[in-house]
């Protein structure tokens, strides 16, 4: 019994703190391959909130670009409007999708020119001070 408890304790210690508390997780991240003249692009991802508390994404950070912002796209009649947003809500026990035609994360000034299949790491900052790692793969569309 003591041996079992010891093994459990050792196992828990081996799991990073962020993973133990991962009430909010990101999946299916992808980024559009930037156009030839651009170092900017859009990143898409699904963010799931497994907690009973509504959360907000209040910022995005990455070392791979000079800046990252959350932008929302919506249609007014037949006109596409795209604007930066300060925060994005994730419902309790729900998810928010950054998808083409709705929300995306803009990456400005990529520090290297990516190829299809390359990955990029970004970090979502939540309103409770925690962070969510995102890995996105570059693809054409």
């Amino acid at each position, binding site marked *: 019994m003591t041996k079992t408890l010891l093994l459990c304790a050792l196992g828990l210690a081996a799991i990073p703190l962020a993973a133990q508390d991962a009430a909010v997780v990101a999946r299916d991240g992808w980024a559009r391959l930037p*156009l030839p003249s651009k170092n*900017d692009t*859009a990143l898409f991802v699904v963010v799931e909130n497994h907690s009973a508390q509504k959360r907000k994404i209040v910022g995005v950070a990455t070392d791979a670009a000079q800046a990252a912002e959350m932008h929302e796209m919506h249609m007014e009649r037949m006109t596409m409007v795209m604007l930066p947003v300060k925060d994005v809500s994730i419902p309790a026990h729900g998810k928010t999708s950054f998808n083409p035609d709705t929300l995306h994360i803009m990456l400005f000034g990529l520090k290297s020119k990516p190829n299809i299949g390359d990955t990029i790491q970004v970090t979502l900052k939540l309103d409770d001070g925690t962070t969510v790692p995102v890995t996105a793969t570059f693809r054409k569309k």
Partner: protein
Amino acid sequence: MYRLIGLAALALLTLGCHRALPVLPVGGDFTLTDDNAQRFELSSLRGKAVLIFFGYTSCPDACPTTLSKLSSVWHNLGGDAKRVKTLYISVDPQRDTPPVLKADLGAFDLDALGLTGTKPEIDKVVAEYGAEYQIIPTPDSVMKYTVAHSTTLYALDTAGRVRMEFPYEATVDQITSGVRRVLASN
């Protein structure tokens, strides 16, 4: 609500597929600057069907989505593709110089020409086609400004007359069959 209107327009496109295409009360000839920095006249494309849409190359979502869709249309047209030209008219002449347009359009596999011009020249074409755009300052963003723009795709027959308009939601198959109808409409 407006998305519903777009879907209704799509339904009408499908329902009306066996009727003769009307000449729509928009459009007209124009002169702009192409992505080789040469003056371009729409009338030089007589004999080809022409697809026109308005956008800007810094657009991260709607414009690359439309260009990807039009690339698929171009491939679906098979032998008819050589009778179709796409014109991508920038509503962001400050950033979209001819070399920028040429480089970025080169990422899409279709026969397309990027067009720009002075603001008055672009505004005239936008008005002729019933399109719209608005520069929106975004001082807190790295972009500094974004451009809201209409997403309608205009299909012109070989005589340069607008015969169909496609909403943003139109699928590759709907645009492909529409272009075939336009090619057959003269």
